[in-house]
């Protein structure tokens, strides 16, 4: 049996699609193993086409896995009872655009058997929560992208779910809109909900997530706490700016640094870790150059991500 505080679990989850006239097989997801615990904010990260939406659609019972298994609340996916404890916001959501905000939420409330005063109260609360009280009598066709996203989140919360699954909740929004969605997610976490969301914007995830999984071309490449991943992966890269470096010195610097940019008499180099600082200082001394600045760089998920892409690419090419 599943451990009780594991809300979402997948084991070897895999999906292939048949495309084109000849039914050529493409693998969208290759053997995914995930565990999401109760009460955490879990980021499911990867670039476009990595297989995030495919995974979420399988979890939601919209498409069927080619192989492998997944469980929500310890029950196999597709189970109606676990769906009752679930809220879902699809990627770039399309909704019945002939409905007003109020009618829209009423419809979803009715699907859960909510009616009358209970439903009215719930809708008021939700519209308040997502900051859309002003749009209750406006047709969805007149909504902006951000408004749709918000009313979509309200829809996902109508049954007061324990697990909220959001597919790219922040894509297509301006910085203010993204911040508002982030605050909303934190607010949901505070009220004890488990949140699983996908994103290709790593910065958002860094600020929000307890744990993340990173997938690339259908394969999981990293999983864990954000702080641990960053520390292990890319911690403490260092940026140095040097003035008046000789050509020999520059050649030696290139061997140590990840990246070197020459701008007139000045050279900017990014060192992969602190270990390279000593040798670089020696180069500077030996060449009679001056050190202009030295900035330790706090790693970000983005750095980790770029590194993973670089590392995995040859391997992925072989696999194709």
């Amino acid at each position, binding site marked *: 049996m599943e451990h009780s505080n594991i809300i979402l679990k997948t084991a070897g989850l895999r999906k292939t*699609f048949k495309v084109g006239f000849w039914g050529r097989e493409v693998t969208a997801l290759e053997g995914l193993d995930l565990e999401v615990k109760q009460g955490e904010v879990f980021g499911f990260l990867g670039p476009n086409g990595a297989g995030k939406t495919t995974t979420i*659609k399988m979890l*939601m*019972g*919209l*498409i*069927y896995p080619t192989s492998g298994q997944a469980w929500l609340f310890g029950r196999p996916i597709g189970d*109606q*009872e676990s*769906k*009752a404890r*679930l809220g*879902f916001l*699809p990627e770039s*959501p*399309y*909704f*019945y655009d*002939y*409905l007003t905000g109020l009618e829209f939420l009423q*419809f*979803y409330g*009715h*699907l*859960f*058997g909510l009616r009358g005063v209970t439903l009215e109260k719930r809708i008021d609360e939700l519209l308040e929560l997502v900051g859309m009280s002003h749009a209750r009598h406006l047709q969805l066709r007149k909504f902006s992208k951000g408004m749709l996203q918000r009313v*979509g989140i309200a*829809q*996902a919360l109508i*049954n007061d779910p324990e697990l909220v699954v959001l597919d790219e909740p922040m894509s297509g929004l301006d910085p203010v809109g993204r911040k508002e969605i982030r605050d909303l997610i934190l607010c949901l976490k505070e009220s004890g909900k488990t949140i699983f969301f996908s994103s290709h914007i790593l910065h958002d995830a860094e600020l929000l997530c307890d744990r993340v999984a990173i997938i690339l071309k259908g394969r999981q490449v990293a999983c864990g706490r954000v702080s641990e991943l960053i520390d292990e992966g890319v911690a403490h890269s260092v940026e140095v700016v040097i003035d008046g470096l000789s050509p020999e010195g520059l050649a030696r610097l290139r061997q140590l640094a990840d990246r070197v940019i020459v701008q007139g008499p000045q050279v900017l180099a990014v060192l992969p870790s602190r270990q390279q600082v000593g040798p670089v200082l020696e180069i500077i001394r030996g060449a009679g150059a001056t050190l202009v600045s030295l900035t330790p760089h706090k790693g970000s998920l983005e750095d980790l991500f770029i590194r993973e892409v670089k590392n995995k690419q040859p391997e992925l090419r072989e696999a194709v």
Partner: protein
Amino acid sequence: MRILSIALNTFRENLREKLLYNLLFFALLMIGSSILLSRITLGDYHRLILDLGLASINLFGVLIAIFVGIGLVSKEVDRKTIYTIVSKPIPRYEFLLGKYCGLVITLLANTVVMVAGLLIVLQVMDVPITSLVFKSLALIFLELMVITAVAVLFSTFTSATLSAIFTLAVYVIGHLSGDLKEFAKKLDEVSQMVVNAIYYTLPNLERFNLKGHVIHHLDFGMTDMALSLTYGLTYSAFLLLLASVIFQRRDFQ
């Protein structure tokens, strides 16, 4: 309850469709035009009014069923509105039944309007309104229910355009199926089997056509009525069952 919510939402969606009102307008125009036609026709104008009226209700009902109906399911899949429904604790067949019932409610509302138009014309032109007229109307509505089920079935696995073409084909062949059997007799054995197979799988829509009875005052008893009713309902139920099975297996991409 959930089926009803989906049905009412579908009905609401249909009511905001302009095409519906255009079709309804033309139906009423055609029913009304029989008044003018009967002025310039010598002889039995009762026949003309009834024939034209019933035919219009049938034709426009079918057009509404097809052109509003085919979008029902495929539009939800294309626009991905189905994502938020299937991810809720609603079995897929309930969604399908809800869509079907929604369209049947739409058709009922439209038929009521068209029938009201016809009754007014009959009243104005002093044509006797017999119980046969009502029996005929009931069977026309039953036919619409069958056609709607056909449209729903096709739209669970093909695009809206193909569904429309297929459903229209079923409607046309369904009315020719009596001739089809006669036609088969003249063919070689293999073709005969094929044509017979078509005859037995497609609905025999002529069973729902009482225009001949109405015009020639032929009786259509309660037993016949019950038989046609059973046939239509069973056939629709079977189509919806098949549609549910297909829909259940589908990936929504």
